[in-house]
């Protein structure tokens, strides 16, 4: 081995070390972990840069890194929360890690939801299944400064009752007078004691019929849900410029160099992951 080792050089690919301080199972195979920075300088850097919508690369040495959103809001930056489904090598290693164990985080990267521009407006959050985590970061970022926004409506659906994530927070939102929560599960996914809606998200959204006036919509979900929800929003009169979403693609570097996350000419890691529906509509659909 001819390479030399020394620590003076800043290494953009070097992650921060994080301690798992809490973990919570959300749904079958889906877990939330709260992570705390071990190095105060890393934490300071995070506090300075993190805004809702940004993502990170979470990792376990020996297994690699995986890209997902920061699920906690910018208003609570003492820690990072992430929610993931155990599905590949890295997420399995993360799922095997216990409270007190150390994992890694690289980020935050990417752009953000411009929530200052949402001040004074009504907010409509629409989310499906495991896509609530990125939406939840925006929801809490807004609810933590509730007075700055108008009416808040959250439409959330999952395939089955068991698949709903953040059940304790759904209860909390349900109880709040200043939040209008519409919960639904796909037909056949309801349990005997389910007292909310049954139906697909776009259908339920059209029935709830939120007004597009002075309203920003944030949608996040599987591609099929997004496709039909956008049609429903159009029917309801929403302008594509007022509809925001966040894209996900496979990434390795997170900083615009490894060359794979682009949709057409747009690098999701640098120019995204947050886009308006209008921006997404200009991307080549075959590359999504």
């Amino acid at each position: 081995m001819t390479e030399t080792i020394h620590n003076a050089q800043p290494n953009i690919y070097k992650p921060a070390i994080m301690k798992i301080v809490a973990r919570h199972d959300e749904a079958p195979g889906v877990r939330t972990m709260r992570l705390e920075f071990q190095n105060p300088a890393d934490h300071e850097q995070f506090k300075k840069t993190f805004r809702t919508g940004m993502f990170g690369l979470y990792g376990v040495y020996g297994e690699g890194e995986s890209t997902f959103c920061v699920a906690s809001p910018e208003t609570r930056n003492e820690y990072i929360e992430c929610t993931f489904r155990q599905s590949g090598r890295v997420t399995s290693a993360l799922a095997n890690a216990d409270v007190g164990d150390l994992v890694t985080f690289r980020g935050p990267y990417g752009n953000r939801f411009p929530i200052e521009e949402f001040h004074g407006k009504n907010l409509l959050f629409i989310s499906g299944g495991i896509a609530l985590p990125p939406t939840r970061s925006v929801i809490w970022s807004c609810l933590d400064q509730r007075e700055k926004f108008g009416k808040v409506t959250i439409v959330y659906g999952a395939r089955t009752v068991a698949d709903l994530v953040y059940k304790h927070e759904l209860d909390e939102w349900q109880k709040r007078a200043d939040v209008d929560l519409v919960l639904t599960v796909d037909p056949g996914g309801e349990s005997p004691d389910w007292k909310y809606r049954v139906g697909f998200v776009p259908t339920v959204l059209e029935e709830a019929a939120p007004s597009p006036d002075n309203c920003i919509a944030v949608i996040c979900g599987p591609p099929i849900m997004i496709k039909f929800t956008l049609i429903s929003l159009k029917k309801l009169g929403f302008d594509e410029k007022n509809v925001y979403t966040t894209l996900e693609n496979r990434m390795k570097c997170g900083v615009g160099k490894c060359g794979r996350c682009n949709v057409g000419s747009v690098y999701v890691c640098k120019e995204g992951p947050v886009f308006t529906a209008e921006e997404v509509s200009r991307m080549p659909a075959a590359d999504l």
Partner: protein
Amino acid sequence: MTRILFSDKLDNCVAKWRSAGLTVIGPVQGESLSSYATVEKGTDLHLGLVLPDRSLKELFFPQTEPMLSYTIKKNEIETADFTPPSAPRIIFGARPCDASGLAIDDPLFGWDYKDEYWFQRRNESVIVTIACTKADDFCLCTSLKLAPDSTKGSDVLLRSLDKNRGWLVEELTDRGREAFAIISEYLQEGSEPALPTVEVPEKFNLDTCVTWLQNPENFDSKFWKEISMRCIGCASCTYLCPTCHCFDIQDEGDTYSGIRRKNWDSCSFALFTMHTSGHNPRSTQSARWRQRIMHKFNYFPGKFSVNSCSGCGRCSRQCPVDMGITETLQEISKL
């Protein structure tokens, strides 16, 4: 007065550079492929090659590179960064297309987040390029608005004299001047005509191709499928390319200790973009070939105002099924 470096002094120059602490690198014929490699004396250099099979890229962005090592103990993770060895070096006999390739990738490795693995090597290398007096049928620098004597990315440009007697020296940068100050005793003042650079015929009109590529309607053209039908996705084109920069990050080791590496990757591979869910945005070989062409001539110039192709022709020269950028752009210019 121009200065001349005569070929019979090359051994002295190499020795002098080496004694000044520079590693001397140049085109070398290996057992199967030629490449840029370290030499000990001037006669080791194979300066008669049209260009080496392998590009200059790998000296700045190696095929595999350790980035950091990790050791995991109870409640503790120790890591140490690997950085490229501090080794000033001179690359003697680079081709203009290879030198241009480095300059093309500089903004990519430097935008926003700076990749020190690339820049440390860039900062420690002097690129001495020899203008081309011969070419083969695959060379296409002129189609990319570059030339057989283009100076882009070079610190010194040499123009050959007849009968392999030596070169006229054009120092382009301070770094080049410093390196040639070391060997000034072997340089002779003089002026005589250099050999003309080779004529490389233009193979397509780049502007026509770029206009076609920029038209969103053509993204879904059936052309992509037809042109890439025989691509076997081997990635040779991307690995030999002087500008292809895509990489993967992989851990090599176990739960307790190992090394995190940056490895060449390629848009030719299905796994390159495959999501964990199984969804793959570029699931067909034609989508992947389209990505390569679009990236080089539409996306990359859109970001960095330069095409991600320096016209070396290696992609066509080495392709096992005889495809390549030349054929694709020639066909596009006919559409």
